[in-house]
């Protein structure tokens, strides 16, 4: 326990995040003092609300990371649970899916995190794609209701895969045995989360500043080419500059960051398409006060598994 505290580079990363939070809070307050029009006021209030939320999220994340692997697994388990809860609430599930859903929440999802805890990579990697994949339709079939059978199964499987399976690859970075990097795995997780979340933030900022040309206006009217390119380039630059906290060379780090940014963008786009289909703006909006956890982590759900496997393929013998 608290082993990570002694890790100097990890402390530098935390200090960097802290500096960023302080800087953005100051900027947010300056903007608030100089706001003029009504439209700008709404944007700035929204920005300040986001910054306040970031303080809380960073504090919780840092605390769990410092407690160690168990703390991190519990944290990500809770995030998975909250995200899947939002997803299943809003994606219309069917009365006949009740038992299947119970298993998804209380058996499949905890088991996935337990498998990381006991470092059983072989089962962790296939439990949901193979076993849960077969379990879900079987369980629905046993229920006996065949209305929209494939449709219902697919919705549940997508939820489990994105919210539990994909996201669990982020804390799974802690069990990768990278030669020469032992005991520093928390840095890799922090690197992934920083680049991924900063890519979201920077795409938002660039989009607000100079965004003009819509990318996929039918799916997500706020995504612009300017925001996308500006965000990906600046987040990749940030990730490259953090190479010292990873097992990568600066060039490798640039490639990895770029990968995280692109996949993060894909995650955001896919989740926007789902939200558009259901007819809501945010997963958190309909259920106010529950924050929209899935809106925050959609990019991480897509970036984490690919980042995990690329690192594992190239850096774990």
């Amino acid at each position: 326990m608290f082993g990570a505290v002694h890790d100097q580079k990890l402390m530098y990363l935390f200090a960097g995040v802290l500096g960023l939070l302080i800087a953005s809070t100051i900027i947010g307050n300056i903007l608030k003092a100089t706001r003029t029009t009504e439209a700008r006021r709404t944007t700035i209030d929204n920005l300040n609300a986001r910054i306040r939320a970031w303080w809380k999220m960073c504090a919780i994340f840092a605390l769990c990371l410092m407690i160690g692997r168990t703390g991190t697994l519990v944290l990500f388990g809770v995030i998975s649970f909250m995200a899947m809860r939002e997803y299943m609430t809003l994606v219309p599930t069917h009365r006949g899916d009740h038992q299947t859903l119970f298993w998804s929440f209380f058996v499949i999802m905890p088991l996935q995190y337990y498998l990381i805890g006991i470092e059983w990579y072989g089962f962790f990697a296939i439990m949901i794609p193979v076993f849960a994949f077969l379990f879900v339709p079987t369980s629905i079939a046993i229920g006996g209701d065949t209305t929209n059978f494939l449709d219902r199964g697919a919705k549940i499987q997508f939820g489990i895969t994105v919210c539990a399976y994909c996201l669990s690859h982020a804390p799974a970075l802690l069990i990768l045995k990278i030669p020469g990097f032992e005991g520093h795995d928390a840095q890799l997780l922090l690197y992934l989360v920083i680049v991924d979340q900063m890519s979201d933030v920077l795409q938002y900022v660039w989009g607000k500043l100079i965004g003009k040309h819509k990318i996929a206006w039918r799916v997500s009217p706020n995504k612009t080419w300017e925001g996308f390119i500006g965000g990906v380039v600046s987040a990749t630059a940030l990730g490259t500059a953090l190479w010292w906290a990873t097992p990568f060379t600066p060039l490798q780090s640039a490639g990895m960051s770029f990968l995280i940014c692109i996949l993060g963008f894909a995650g955001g786009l896919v989740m926007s398409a789902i939200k558009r289909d259901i007819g809501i703006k945010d997963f958190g909006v309909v259920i106010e006060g529950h924050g929209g956890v899935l809106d925050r982590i959609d990019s991480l759900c897509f970036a984490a598994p690919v980042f995990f496997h690329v690192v594992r393929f190239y850096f774990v013998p």
Partner: protein
Amino acid sequence: MSQGIHPVASLLAAVARGISGIQVQWAGCQPNERQRIYFANHSSHLDFVVLWSALPSEIRATTRPVAAKDYWEETPLRRFLAQNVFKAVLVERGGMAKTKNHEESHLASRSLIEDLVTALGKTNSLILFPEGTRGTGEKVGPFRSGLYHLALHRPDVELVPAYLENLNRILPKGEVLPVPMLSLLTFGKPIQVEPNDDKESFLERARESVSSLRRIGTA
């Protein structure tokens, strides 16, 4: 009724809040210690506990559920929960049903109203599910007449409609294990019996006051 909340009741309320992720909105009125009858749609065993847990604790202590005697006296555990833990007012479900024997039905419903009026007393509030039984959650079923008669007997008690949303997906009829979806509870604007109301028009308006509070999934 003895004051104070049974510890098991507080525990169950906390568990129900956790499982249901309930989010409460006082849209048509504010929490108040005055005597009230909260009436809501019914689709899950969690309905009462969730509604009750959403009230501030000083109001909770004097608010009792109205529940079906035949179901809640069937086993010792249910009896313990109904009588000791939640201090439920147990009533004959058949009391308000339309039986062939007019006389008998009339007598039964009179004794039911008397029971409820006694339960209200000078300080208590009630939680009532006027549909009389759990529905599928798709729409609010017709109301039984108890609410109307009670309103005539106690015009001083405020009638507060409430809509419980998504609880039929968390713990539907016939299931034992809950699925932790998120749910919503909306309290609406109090209604009353108007001078030109007859039983049917009042009950339909009461039903409408509940179903109009639905916020999502209006398909």
